[in-house]
């Protein structure tokens, strides 16, 4: 087993301990306490952070040295048998999302769009935006990043290489492309950030959905009818693994005439959608987060609430709709601007 890519010396010499000091869910009296907790984690000692962590991935982004603080934390949780969620909840989901071995070779061409394990989303791949695209989907190509929320690095190590092998063997190997458009932000995070940190080889080139849309909008610029609307954006946990794509999203919004209204809980201060704390049996905290987040959204007078992550949308979509915001995925918003 390859260890997580991590250098303890970086933390020893770190002046800010941003990974913990910027955490929105755990408070520290001062930087020295945060440093002490961080060193405990690094050394494999007990730390309250290991049990209190919401698993929002944000520390991955906060760390200025890309020293993989979150992946290490998950590693320590698993080593110590700290379960963020009850065992039957984890075990049952492990089975639900297990590879079924029902995958069959499929000829793919054009942009190959990875829909992860979510067949219900394949309808999103339509129109000019995805012209000529082929979709691939199923639990046999599930990105498996969700196990970061459940202290299961071992599953990531076990299943991600298998998924990569499936994507290559059944789809890309005999195709004319080596690129995989990740419709699911988490897939992109898996095949870039996670793969790099865990030492997993990725033989194809993952393309983030935002990069894909941005390029397509260049091609389709004459078809764009600016939507001229204010939007709020729900930034998902997985986007902490590819923060550079957030700037690409700004470019997309600019091209389609969507004004991403600044609000307290966007960008680095994005709040968890509440889905994972519910799995951790922390519903009251999840309720608080949802209220705080939606009130923040409502305070800026937007029309749309734009989601990157389908799970965030499933968790929050109904609630924001009831409050008067229209929930849409980024791809849907782009398609609206393309008159579709």
């Amino acid at each position, binding site marked *: 087993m390859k260890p997580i890519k991590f250098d303890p010396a970086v933390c020893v010499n770190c002046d800010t301990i941003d990974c913990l000091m910027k955490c929105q869910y755990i408070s520290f009296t001062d930087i020295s306490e945060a440093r002490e907790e961080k060193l405990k984690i690094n050394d494999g000692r007990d730390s309250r952070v290991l049990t209190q962590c919401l698993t929002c991935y944000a520390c991955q982004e906060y760390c200025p040295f890309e020293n993989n603080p979150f992946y290490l934390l998950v590693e320590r949780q698993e080593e110590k048998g700290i*379960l963020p*969620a*009850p*065992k*039957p*909840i984890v*075990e*049952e989901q492990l*089975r*639900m999302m*297990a590879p079924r071995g029902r995958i069959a070779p499929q000829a793919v061409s054009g942009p190959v769009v990875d829909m992860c394990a979510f067949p219900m989303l394949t309808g999103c791949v339509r129109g000019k935006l995805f012209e000529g695209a082929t979709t691939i989907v199923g639990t046999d190509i599930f990105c498996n990043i969700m196990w970061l929320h459940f202290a299961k690095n071992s599953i990531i190590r076990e299943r991600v290489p298998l998924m990569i092998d499936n994507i290559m063997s059944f789809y890309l190997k005999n195709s004319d492309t080596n690129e995989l458009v990740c419709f699911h932000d988490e897939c992109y995070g898996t095949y870039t950030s996670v793969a790099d940190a865990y030492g997993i080889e990725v033989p194809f080139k993952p393309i983030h959905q935002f990069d894909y849309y941005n390029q397509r909008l260049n091609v389709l610029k004459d078809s764009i009818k600016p939507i001229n609307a204010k939007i709020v954006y729900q930034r998902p946990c997985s986007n902490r693994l590819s923060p550079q794509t957030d700037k690409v999203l700004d470019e997309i919004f600019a091209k389609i005439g969507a004004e991403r209204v600044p609000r307290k809980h966007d960008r680095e201060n994005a709040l968890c959608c509440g*889905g*994972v704390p*519910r*799995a951790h*049996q922390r*519903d*009251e905290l999840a*309720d608080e987060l949802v209220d705080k987040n939606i009130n923040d959204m409502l305070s800026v007078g937007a029309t749309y609430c734009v989601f990157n992550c389908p*799970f965030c949308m*499933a*968790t929050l*979509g*109904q*609630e924001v709709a009831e409050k008067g915001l229209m929930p849409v995925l980024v791809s849907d918003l782009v398609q609206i601007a393309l008159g579709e």
Partner: protein
Amino acid sequence: MTTDLITRLEKIVGPRFVSGEAEERYLYSMDQGTMPPAVPDAVVMPKNSDEVQQIVRLANELKVPVVPMGAGLVLSGLTRALKGGIILDMKRMNRIIVVNPISRYAVVEGGASQGMLKAYLKKHHPGLKHSMPDAPPIATLAGNVCIHGSGHLSVLGGSHSDMLTGMEVVLPSGEIIRTGACSVSPDWFGRSPLPDLSGLFLGWSGTTGIVTRLGIKLFPNYKHNDVLIFVSEDADLMPDMISKLTSTQVAEDMTPWMSPKPDWARGFLHINIAYGAHSKKELTFKRNLMQASVREYIDRKIAGFLPLPPPQKGRFLKIPSPDLARFADLRKGGGFEYVGAIMAIEHFPAAYRAGLAIAEKFNVGYSLGARIIGAGHSMMFFFAYAFNRADAEDVKRASEALEATNTAALKIGGIPWKAELPAQKQIIEKMDPNTFALMGRIRSVLDPNHIMNPGNWEK
């Protein structure tokens, strides 16, 4: 005699609503369960209590058996004409007579269906609902009450017979009587404070009379509804978990389920908990109460609530639940039956293990589960087996599994629910002999000619 019977029945209900034809008699000879067919001499569909009364008087005169039938969906063969005679199909008596929105009850005719009342309430009284069983919507209210059925409000209101507020019954002798408040008052609000005669017709499998009207309780139809699914892996903990969850008294329905399909569910024990509220705040409050009640197990990480985003909850909030129907078609061929045994909650682990052992022994597809009745006062534990009716071996296997299940349920301390003939005999074997003797004396008084669904509840 049959020609005379048909002719005289035609005079009562008109020729369109009587049949002695082989096709109809075949269709009415069985239900979807494993019990062998028993062919009636005639099928009749009365329109009102007066016609029912005339039919019963005719049956007495001719000494012909009468088998009352609702939708015929009981699955345990209780509406088969074991000794021939008349199947009295109540489906034409399907009026919703009155709904009292303040005292929350409905009075319906004996053939009114679950689906009809649901649709009626939705249209005319959207703030009210009744407890739907997980049966097809054509199942009748009276039939389900008479078999002590249960449904989606059974944690709140007990079994459906507990929700009965009164009855109009045509006795085997032909007299029409009323039970409950409606025997004194114009209102059908309940069964107290009078001597409760309703029990003479509940659980008797149509051997004591024909229910032509009944009153049933209605409940608030909440604007906000939610479902929780509590998951664990240890059957021995289930009684305490159920007890703690029901102690909050906020759930409407609680249905544990254990199934080998889908694959991910095998070995896990789930409790679906449905609840509702007038406001979101109230809904959250109720959720918190239930979560707090089992916090001890959650903190020990040995059980927890499955995270379900709102779009995934719709399936679990459907009434009736489509899941059992889906399971019923597992083997194709249209065969499905289950043993539901009413028992105390503490017997959950033993019932679960018995079900697994029987399914393995007889190599049958199974689904095990329960519906909690009252605030954890008892449960209907079900052992469901799907089979292919076209495959005689499959039917035999399922039949043997059912018999073994009845034996196991009785051994555990449960009582087979809506028991088919062999199970009735098993129950009688275990029953206090004085109780059984009293049942016989009551029947003799009510039905001196022994015309009502003969063959049932007999040694």
